């Protein structure tokens, strides 16, 4: 439910401001608001930011940036404890980690260098393999230059032209070896007397010819020495990189928790300075305002009284009408409903004073989900999986909540499985251990359509009733009457439909028609032309619940198909494997599709009747 909030004002001498902010930070219950200062509040002025605070903030901002960069350079160890760092220890620990920081940066630079070299060597691998045998044969020639070239295969004719030109330049004292390197290029190794180098280089500067250029660190070597050196380095580099990574991991093991704790402390200190921008001042006092949930207001007040005595005053302010829309929304439910709050995460928070739908979601989501899946076997498997995944992801609140909801819903699926007599489709029935207690889903389609529409009628009407009651409780008479007229219109229309399809006695026709006309007029008066449109939408919403039957039937038919195909095989093992594979696919769909359909029924059909989005989330000032 949405908690009631109180507006608090904290007033104290300016000398106590820092201690007071720290106490607020530790209390972790106040959603701090900016105090109105200026022309509206002549006694208050904005609290000026002192130069010391500004330089402190700039120092902390830089430290936070530095720590974030450092943490990004380290791989988080599999398990580490975040160090608890007090605000006063920040500078000392920052100094302590300076040598570590330098070492990390050095190791990273080394790692980058080695990675780049390995990439270069790998790039030349193709050439190494192609040229090495030829170049090693030419290795002994002194006063001769050796160069490597690659030519695109489509320009093969160039090789002959080059050879003719080299022949002319060197007077026939050259050797040229050509070899296919891959599908698209030819490698050429050319040896020629060193005195002809300028003319040869000029000749080879054409566009289609690519000289094999060596990386900088090999530039001073001859081609053969460079290639030999690259071969050696290829063997060494992975080992060197492992060494660097090993040292980085050792540093991460020792320091990651310290750095993470330090970053947290730095960010907390930045937050504490940030609060100053929300505060106001008089000549001698500071003023801070915010919102506190009702149930923690008294303990919070007591806490400040114990800490500061009568030097700091905590008092409740009266909430003005214009402020009601801006009251932050804090949702607090009993532990067993809390996992279902995950559904509100996908929507903007509800307005303060409106309805928190968590209770209704907790009641209906598992029921709808179970009705769609409706299979003991599937329910049991999903229940087991959910419990395992819930344990596996217990550190992540959202995942933990999702798997808790799924576990609860799968219990409902087992329950409906008993009613429908389904255990992996009709397997239970075939084995003679299970029979439908209520209906057979494949045969009783019409019953299911009526049943699901009935659920739709109940759910949609409940939504309208919740909306009407909420308007009444909040004293919004016009909206409440409009909602009641809306309810009466939908009910009377359904009564007339019931009479037409002979579900209800004909005697109800006249009162039904009278209520229909009166409620239609009232709705049009209060809501305008959009009122009747809403009515049409509500009827569409009710029909939409047929999806509970449609998706469920699709799932059960697929389970039957799995059993039938599995049964076609004469080999028992093959049959079980085939049926198991189809059941696995159906099981995955059974998790996804019912979840989406049930969520949609809540978000679109149900919430649209009462949910008022647009609230501000309650975010208390607390440590990270």
């Amino acid at each position, binding site marked *: 439910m949405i908690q009631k909030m109180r507006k608090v004002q904290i007033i104290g001498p300016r000398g106590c401001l820092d201690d007071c902010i720290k106490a607020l930070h530790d209390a972790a219950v106040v959603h701090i608001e900016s105090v109105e200062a200026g022309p509206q509040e002549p006694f208050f002025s904005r609290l000026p930011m002192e130069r010391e605070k500004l330089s402190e903030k700039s120092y902390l901002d830089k430290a936070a940036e530095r720590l974030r960069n450092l943490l990004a350079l380290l791989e988080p160890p599999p398990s580490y404890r975040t160090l608890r760092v007090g605000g006063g220890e920040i500078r000392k620990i920052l100094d302590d980690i300076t040598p570590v920081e330098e070492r990390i940066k050095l190791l990273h630079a080394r790692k980058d260098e080695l990675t780049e070299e390995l990439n270069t060597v790998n790039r030349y691998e193709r050439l190494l393999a192609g040229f090495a045998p030829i170049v090693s044969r030419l290795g002994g020639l002194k006063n001769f230059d050796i160069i490597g070239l690659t030519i695109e295969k489509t320009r093969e004719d160039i090789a002959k032209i080059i050879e003719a030109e080299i022949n002319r330049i060197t007077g026939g004292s050259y050797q040229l070896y050509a070899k296919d390197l891959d599908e698209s290029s030819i490698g050429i190794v050319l040896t020629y007397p060193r005195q002809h180098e300028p003319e040869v280089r000029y000749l080879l500067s054409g566009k289609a010819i690519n000289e094999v250029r060596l990386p900088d660190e090999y530039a001073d070597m001859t081609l053969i020495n460079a290639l030999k050196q690259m071969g050696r380095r290829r063997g060494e580099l992975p080992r060197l990189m492992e060494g660097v990574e090993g040292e980085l991991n050792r540093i991460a093991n020792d320091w990651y928790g310290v750095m993470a704790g330090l970053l947290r402390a730095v960010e907390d200190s930045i937050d504490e300075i940030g609060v100053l921008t929300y505060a106001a001042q008089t000549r001698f006092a500071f003023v801070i305002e915010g919102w506190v949930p009702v149930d923690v207001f008294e303990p919070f007040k007591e806490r400040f009284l114990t800490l500061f005595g009568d030097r700091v005053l905590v008092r409740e302010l009266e909430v003005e009408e214009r402020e009601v829309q801006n009251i932050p929304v804090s949702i607090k439910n009993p532990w067993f409903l809390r996992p279902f709050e995950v559904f509100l995460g*996908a929507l903007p928070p509800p307005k303060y004073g409106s309805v928190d739908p968590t209770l209704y979601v907790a009641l209906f989501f598992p029921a709808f989900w179970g009705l769609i899946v409706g299979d003991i076997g599937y329910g049991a498997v999903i229940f087991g999986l959910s419990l395992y995944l819930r344990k596996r992801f217990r550190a992540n609140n959202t995942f933990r909540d999702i798997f808790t909801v799924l576990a609860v819903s799968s219990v409902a699926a087992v329950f409906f499985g008993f009613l429908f007599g389904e255990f992996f489709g009709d397997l239970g029935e075939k084995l003679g251990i299970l029979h439908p207690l209520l209906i057979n889903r494949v045969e009783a389609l019409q019953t299911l359509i009526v049943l699901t529409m009935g659920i739709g009628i109940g759910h949609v009407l409940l939504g309208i009733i919740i909306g009407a009651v909420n308007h009444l409780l909040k004293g919004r008479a016009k909206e409440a009457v409009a909602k009641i007229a809306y309810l009466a219109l939908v009910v009377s229309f359904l009564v007339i439909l019931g009479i037409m399809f002979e579900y209800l006695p004909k005697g109800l026709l006249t009162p039904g028609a009278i209520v229909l006309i009166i409620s239609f007029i009232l709705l049009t008066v209060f809501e305008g032309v959009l009122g009747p449109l809403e009515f049409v939408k509500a009827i569409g919403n009710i*029909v939409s619940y047929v999806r509970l039957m449609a998706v469920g039937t699709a799932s059960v038919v697929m389970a039957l198909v799995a059993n039938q195909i599995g049964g076609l095989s004469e080999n028992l093992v093959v049959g079980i494997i085939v049926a198991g594979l189809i059941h696995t696919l159906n099981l995955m769909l059974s998790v996804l599709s019912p979840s989406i359909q049930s*969520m949609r029924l809540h978000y679109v059909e149900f919430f649209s009747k009462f949910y008022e989005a647009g609230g501000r989330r309650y975010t208390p000032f607390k440590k990270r």
Partner: protein
Amino acid sequence: MEKALVALAAAIAIGLPALATAWAQSKIGAAGGGTLAEKPELSGTIIILVAIPETMVLLGFVVAYLIISR
């Protein structure tokens, strides 16, 4: 012959809304995918938007069933 026509009518009653739903979901899904890349926090809204056109095929299903079960 009449049986075949009834079956055809039911097929059309569910087939056309199915195509319409698919077309609408393809448009919404593509736009939704783009939106999620920019604002992952809107995932709930996108799920709702993608699921909205399904009502068409459900209504088609109900009509098809009414045709067949007459």
